[in-house]
């Protein structure tokens, strides 16, 4: 990770934003929501860029993570932070169920995951005794106070999600720069060549899927404990798929911070501006952004910014 990028990010995340927004609960809440999207966007970009798989069903992992954590903390009395991790684990396990889809190419995989999202949603509704059925779960435990910091507050929640997102981005970057990253990159267009030199290509893709699902699951679990409420239509909503994709594409899914930047920009603009102007069709702008980005700057926003600053824009991961 380039320290010239990491240090400003850390400063902004842990100093600037908290100081600037600590008294504005409304904006802070929006930022938390934007970062939740960012977390999923990073996970999606990781799968798309490194794994080479476009997923249209990440809401599946988000929802599973949310429910696993909520249920474990409410029914089994697990501490909330453990629930957070277990949400990730639960989503990772759910991704194993989707692994047969790995041998499919492109759109087949994308839609297979979508099918899984629908199925998990129905399961959440049907397993009423565990998940509260269609009515959902209320009063999901908040984050506790640890070392004097109330993580249940808006600010505390902010620190949590921003840490999760930064860790996810660092993981994405670490993989990208490793030999694994090289092999994954080569697998897109020369999979046979990699297999013949000893790369277990399907296994690598599977690992990317599990990692992506884990991150998404943790983010889902965070969200459940932050808003203290969950129901199937919400937890598995298509928005948890569409918004992160728009964010990743807009920001640049082949970069590490692109999805994060994209999420912040898109979500905040969407909530503060587009929703006011087009209360019913504001998602239209998201569609336009996605289409527009693909046509005019497939690399997203970040490469454009980097080029402006005279840096070298990486066309590929």
């Amino acid at each position, binding site marked *: 990770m380039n320290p010239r990028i990491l240090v400003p990010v850390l400063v902004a995340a842990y100093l600037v934003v908290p100081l600037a927004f600590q008294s504005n609960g409304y904006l802070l809440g929006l930022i938390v929501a934007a970062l939740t999207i960012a977390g999923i966007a990073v996970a999606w970009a990781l799968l798309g860029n490194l794994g080479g798989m476009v997923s249209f069903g990440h809401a599946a992992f988000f929802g599973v993570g949310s429910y696993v954590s909520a249920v474990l903390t409410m029914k089994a009395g697990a501490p909330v932070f453990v629930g957070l991790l277990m949400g990730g684990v639960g989503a990772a396990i759910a991704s194993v169920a989707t692994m047969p889809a790995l041998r499919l190419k492109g759109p087949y995989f994308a839609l297979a995951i979508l099918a899984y999202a629908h199925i998990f949603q129905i399961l959440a509704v049907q397993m009423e005794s565990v998940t509260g059925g269609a009515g959902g779960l209320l009063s999901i435990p908040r984050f506790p106070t640890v070392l004097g910091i109330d993580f249940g507050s808006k600010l505390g929640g902010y620190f949590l999600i921003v840490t999760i997102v930064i860790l996810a981005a660092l993981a994405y970057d670490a993989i990208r720069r490793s030999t694994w990253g090289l092999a994954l990159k080569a697998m897109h*267009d*020369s999979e046979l*060549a990699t*297999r013949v*030199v*000893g790369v277990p290509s399907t296994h690598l893709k599977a690992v990317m899927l599990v990692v992506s699902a884990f991150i998404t699951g943790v983010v889902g679990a965070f969200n459940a404990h932050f808003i203290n409420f969950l129901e199937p239509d919400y937890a598995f909503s298509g928005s948890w798929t569409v918004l992160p994709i728009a964010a990743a594409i807009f920001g640049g899914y082949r970069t590490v911070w692109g999805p994060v930047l994209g999420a912040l920009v898109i979500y905040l603009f969407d909530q503060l501006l587009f929703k006011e102007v087009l209360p019913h069709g504001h998602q239209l702008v998201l569609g336009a952004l996605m289409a527009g980005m693909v046509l005019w700057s497939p690399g997203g926003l970040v490469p454009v910014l980097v080029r402006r600053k005279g840096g070298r824009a990486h066309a590929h991961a």
Partner: protein
Amino acid sequence: MLTLDRVQVSFGGVTALRNVTLGVAEGETVGLVGPNGAGKTTLFNVISGVVHPVAGSLSFRGKPLLKEPEWKRARLGIGRSFQIPRPLHHCTVRENLIVAQRFGAGKADPTRIDEILDLLKLAHKADRDAVTELALTEHKALEVGKALATDPALLLLDEVLAGLETAGKRAFMQTLGAVRDRFNLAMIVIEHDIPTISTLCPRVAVLNFGELIADGTPDAVFRDAEVIRSYTGEAVA
């Protein structure tokens, strides 16, 4: 070291390989020749795991191979170069070797990579993109290099000399000889150039229409009537 027993490969209605029984010993160099379409590349595909036979068996150093995927076979010690070069995309030459070494040999040994680059005369192109910035000779050299980086015991060379002019051929041949001696490899070499094969390989096998019609020293094989007929085109009974 490598044993094929009555291997048969069919693609739909076409039988590409029929009843092929072949053995290669440790450190042995075997040439594989035959007219176009005889099934030579298919044989390599079977050995490296790209294609599955419908009948017959395959083993390497005593271990049955049929159930193993391509990448496992690479790790077991079977290195493969493709007739039409297949470099790793979006990677430099050096990165190609790094990936091959890391996954195929299970280690990271930069000295060995430098040695391979030097042997194959690729050092000056080490940090160039493997797909877009190499000339044909260099592509072919990289094919061999990738396979070498996996620490193979058996090297499958598929027409690495094709497309090269005489001087280039001679130079590459010497490189191959040096490679073999340095790393103590067994090799199966597919070539069309008979003088080359005769010089490099003390033993030659001949495929025709998917069947092995001769297997012996170059002298014996190239005087065999059936082999000559298969090349000159007279109908084989």
